[in-house]
């Protein structure tokens, strides 16, 4: 009884120290950064002090520039991510179900997937124009392939015994899809979504780097061209923050959607 109590106390304490760890890492990084600038290892125009970056952050936040560019990037990223997910899941499902389709499309998919998006992004700008469409398409293509691959793997990982069980219960196609395939493939699908969500930031920024009038990628380019290194860092940190939030949102979704899995594991262990 005492042992159980003790382990509970330990468990209660553990999460708080774990929760603090990332902040501790961040603090160490900040201190290291400050130290490097104070020791003047690099000139300030290469690595500006944290204070200069913070001041630029506040300034661009107050004058609305940071918000405008962030909204542009997030908007394009959201649409690109959504379209890429829908297309990736839909085609992935069809490929998982149809080997002929897989054989037909896999050489093309592998060829495009293995080509860095930055290599064909200039073509997308020529084809889709310098407006938001080219950025959305770049983002869409970036998230499409991991989602497609994970969908194929996810659907094919459904145990045949469960399929047989569903068949024996005379399940319809729709029931098979909603009651078996989607829940069974969910962990792998969410893994793909996690990857896609972070990649979507890269996709949209690549598009904005090639040609844009707004967005955080454009802000990085603009700041670099005007030799404003603190502003480059503000935009980069903003992108990192967006990517982290996206990852966090999917992790939260994963936690909610896969709660049943953890529950069943606990029940099985009991």
């Amino acid at each position, binding site marked *: 009884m005492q042992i159980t109590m003790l382990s509970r106390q330990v468990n209660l304490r553990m999460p708080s120290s774990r929760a603090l760890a990332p902040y501790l890492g961040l603090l160490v990084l900040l201190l290291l950064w400050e130290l490097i600038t104070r020791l003047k290892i690099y000139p300030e*125009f*290469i690595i500006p002090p944290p204070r200069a970056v913070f001041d630029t952050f506040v300034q661009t936040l107050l004058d609305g520039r940071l918000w405008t560019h962030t909204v542009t990037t997030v908007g394009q990223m959201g649409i690109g991510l959504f379209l890429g997910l829908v297309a990736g899941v839909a085609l992935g499902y069809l490929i998982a179900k149809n080997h002929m389709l897989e054989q037909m499309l896999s050489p093309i998919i592998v060829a495009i997937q293995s080509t860095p998006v930055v290599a064909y992004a200039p073509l997308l700008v020529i084809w889709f124009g*310098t407006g938001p469409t080219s950025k959305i398409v770049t983002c869409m293509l970036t998230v499409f392939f991991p989602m497609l691959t994970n969908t194929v793997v996810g659907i094919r990982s459904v145990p045949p015994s469960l399929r047989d069980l569903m068949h024996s219960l005379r399940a319809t196609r729709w029931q098979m899809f909603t009651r078996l395939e989607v829940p069974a493939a969910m962990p792998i699908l969410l893994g793909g979504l996690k990857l896609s969500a972070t990649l979507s930031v890269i996709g949209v920024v690549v598009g904005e780097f090639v040609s844009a009038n707004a967005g955080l990628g454009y802000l990085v380019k603009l700041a*670099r061209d005007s*030799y404003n290194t603190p502003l480059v860092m503000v935009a980069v940190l903003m992108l990192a923050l967006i990517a982290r939030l996206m990852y966090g949102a999917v992790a939260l979704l994963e936690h909610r959607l896969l709660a049943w899995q953890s529950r069943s594991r606990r029940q099985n262990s009991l």
Partner: protein
Amino acid sequence: MMRAAPIRSFVGLLVLASLLFAFAPAGAQDELTDQTFFMTFVPNIQFASIYTALEKGYFSDAGIHLTMEHGDEPVGVDLIAAGQRQFGLVSGEQVLAARANGRPIISVYEWFQKYPVGIVYPENSGIETVADLRGRVVGIPGRFGASYTGLIALLAANDMTESDLQLQEIGFNAPEVMCVGAVEAAVIYVTNEPLQINNRAADGDCGDITGVEVFRLSDFTNLVSNTVATNEETAANDPDLVQGMVSAFDLGVRSAINNPAEAYLLSAVYVETLPLPEDLETFLTAAAEAQATFLEENPDADREIVAEQRADLLASLQEQFDADTLLQFQILLASIELWDADQLGYSDLEDWETTQTTLIAMGYITEEQDVSAAYTNAFLPAEE
């Protein structure tokens, strides 16, 4: 004991080999200073003077083993400012913007004596002065870079502003956009797009346009364009190196101006896509040899005579070759017009001041600086 002798021999050989290795290559190659020269864009004929200097050994004569590196200009500026590169091509506006943001770089050779930007417009379009562009749709690659800076300066020199035009961002597609009639004029590089549009017009492939004219910025005012830049530390602490670099660069420019046929042929080693069919190569080789002989016999030939020879050469080429084959050679000749001056590489204070005024008007820099600190003519070769 029996094995000691072979081991000793082996060690002896090793020592001997090391000594040979250490001393043998101490020849000419080791006396050269390795330098990576930062350049913008990609290898192309507009860098012909650098290729000429390399191929004719001007850099190695100056004790420099030069490697070229291409990249984005701001990256190059930061590398030079941080001392990771010592030399590179940087435009005047970037020198000023970089200095305004704490980068200690300095221009030591003004390669382009005239700013290469202008506005192209169709002949017989009713446009005769810059003021005639008021209210018209004018294409521009974008509101950035040299094109935009040049436009603002050109308009300012004619008491106009951006709001007097209907500016349309068209990317670097002026020939296509003009030929379909989507814009009435376009901001361009004078060495390039007008030639392309004229060629298309001559082929009847440019809509209603039969030919084009250009308002050149340099006819109204001048900004500082491409320069050779270094960092202040190198300029102050290694003047011999800077002198050597500038002298070699200058010889390359001089050589390309005097013998463009030779410069074109030498550039073919570096520019993969340079058109050089066998008949053109034969023609240019003969022209280059003839010009070399002329220069040997007339070492004091003045600028006007050499310019006439370039014009004659182009006329002869045009009789035998089509416009597409000659386009890159024409770009070289047009570039030479922008390099040529009574004193090559010389920087003029007024041009730097105009550049600063333009940048301030654009909001690119906010405060005036002492522009005389941004450049120096101290390393230019002495005039003969």
